[in-house]
């Protein structure tokens, strides 16, 4: 039953995302345009702008939620998410460096972002081990925030000093948004995201064990070190793919896994796909709000996810504390 509801929510979010936009199209016109009939511009708006944009927002939202769920189990802290662990910042810095050096292109940008994300997570991990040989998850999260801040200030320096206006405007792109969405960018994202999504899903059982703690996980037969390495790299690649098509979008990875755990419990076998569907629905709707709330002006989608995410987070912390 709850699966039916969740799938219905996802479908409704996608339909709303395609149906609304700054240009108001009637149901009839929309349906004709989807089938390739009617005015050329309307067909292009629906088929080449809205459909890939909503699909990309859904895929990115789902991926961020899955990344957050995996990271929270990995570090056994409910506050972990790609943004707070410095992954998004590292990926953004990698992407900005690639843009500033004018290398990469559509397929190379995610790889540059992946380089930044891996460097960031390695640095965060190393910092967290400063206090001793046992990983302290509180220090890990603080290190993530510090590395994220460092990456943000490096991006700021590159953007301030760069003579080229296109690099300066990368700042706007970093705020997050799906203006770059097309069938091509959806393909790029799909190719880069599918492997880590499968990897994380296949690690659902070890994630259940890891969530109990590394020692118990070892006793219960998990290859802890290998699982951790695999998951960190997969999380980095997912974050990098997301950042390189849509900039830095916060709160989806943090809030969605919590919301899902309330209804689905803690088993990753079902938690991960459920988080993917709800994260996708949330970001598709957030993007619809960003496009239409102040039409014809657009908001950065990160603003909308923060407006939705912060109150939900406060609510979750309250229920969690009591």
């Amino acid at each position, binding site marked *: 039953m709850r699966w039916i509801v969740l799938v219905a929510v996802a479908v409704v979010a996608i339909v709303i995302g395609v149906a609304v*936009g*700054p*240009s108001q199209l009637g149901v009839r016109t929309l349906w004709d345009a989807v089938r390739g009939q009617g005015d*050329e*511009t309307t067909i*292009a*708006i629906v088929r*080449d*702008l*809205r459909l*890939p944009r909503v699909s990309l927002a859904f895929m990115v939202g789902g991926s961020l939620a899955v990344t957050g769920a995996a990271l929270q189990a990995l570090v056994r802290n409910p506050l972990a998410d790609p943004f707070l662990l410095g992954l998004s910042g590292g990926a953004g810095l990698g992407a900005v460096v690639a843009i500033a050096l004018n290398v990469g292109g559509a397929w190379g940008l995610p790889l540059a972002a992946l380089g930044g994300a891996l460097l960031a997570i390695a640095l965060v991990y190393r910092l967290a081990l400063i206090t001793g040989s046992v990983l302290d998850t509180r220090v890990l999260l603080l290190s993530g925030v510090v590395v994220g801040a460092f990456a943000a200030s490096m991006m700021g320096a590159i953007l301030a000093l760069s003579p080229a*206006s296109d690099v300066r*405007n990368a700042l*706007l*792109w970093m705020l997050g*948004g799906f*203006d*770059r*969405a*097309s*069938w*091509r*960018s959806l393909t790029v994202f799909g190719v880069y995201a599918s492997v880590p999504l499968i990897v994380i899903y296949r690690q659902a059982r070890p994630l259940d064990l890891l969530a109990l703690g590394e020692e118990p996980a070892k006793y219960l037969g998990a290859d802890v070190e290998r699982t951790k390495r695999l998951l960190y790299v997969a999380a980095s690649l997912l974050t990098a793919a997301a950042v390189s098509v849509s900039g830095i979008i916060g709160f989806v990875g943090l809030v969605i896994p919590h919301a899902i755990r309330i209804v689905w419990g803690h088993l990753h076998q079902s938690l991960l796909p459920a988080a993917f569907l709800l994260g996708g629905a949330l970001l598709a709707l957030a993007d619809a709000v960003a*496009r239409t709330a102040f*039409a*014809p*002006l*657009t908001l*950065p989608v990160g603003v909308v996810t923060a407006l939705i995410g912060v109150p939900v987070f406060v609510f979750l912390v309250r229920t969690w504390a009591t």
Partner: protein
Amino acid sequence: MFSRTLGALALAVTVACRPADHTAQSMRDDAGRPVAMDRPAERIVSLAPSITELLFALGAGERLVGRTRWCDYPPDAAHVPSVGDGLNPNVEAIAAMRPDWVMFYMSPSNDVVIGQLEELGIATVSLRTDGFADLKRAARLLGAITGTAHVAGQLTDRLNDDLDRLRSTTPPGPGPSVTIVTWSDPPIVIGALSFLSEIISLAGARNSFHDMERPSATVSIEVIAERDPDVLLIASDSTYPDWAARPEWQAVRAVREQKFVAVEGSEFNRPSFRGPKAVDRLRTLLAEQSE
């Protein structure tokens, strides 16, 4: 809108004072602050490219001791040392030039620096230079401050003649609709309160975002596709921008048909006495595009 009202107010005050005395003590700048006319203007720092160009046009260019790094016209401006950015500028770099006047583009982000300079006893003036009407007002004020009022009068008269000529020779019909795209990701377009918008309407075309009462706006590609401009105007030297090849932009008819007009040169992005020539050039470019 508020600054428009202020500007109109300043204009009204200026006009009202003119018959009595050209160097009236009660002249006000575009921020509504009284302008001290008794100060010598021998060492001037200009913090806007439009103001630098205007000072050179008035014949006061050799009195400039500082400019922004964006002041690239006339070529002689390159001999003036740069003090960096013009918005939220570096107060130490300005003070180091020992100016007696510092001229700002009117913006709230300059308020702190204006206060700091006033404390140092340096006279300041804020000018809004977004269109030809602003340019004429600024010429009158700077003419009075620098003692070049007669030059300002001549230049303004000639500009008025040029603008009259342009208005009377506007091609008949509604003209092509134009969207000015200044950035592609996210798409940023020029709204009504921009000099380029004024240039476009004098050239006999329509800015498809004329309803946006702001200098520029972030919109989605869908909005541009829906407004369906005949021509896209880009500030660049290349007639086919990189982003035009991206698949999502093919939803815009003018992109598919490669209807781009590239305007390069500072006469298009800031009001100056070269403006009428820019309008003539844009007319030629638009005519070539509609052939």
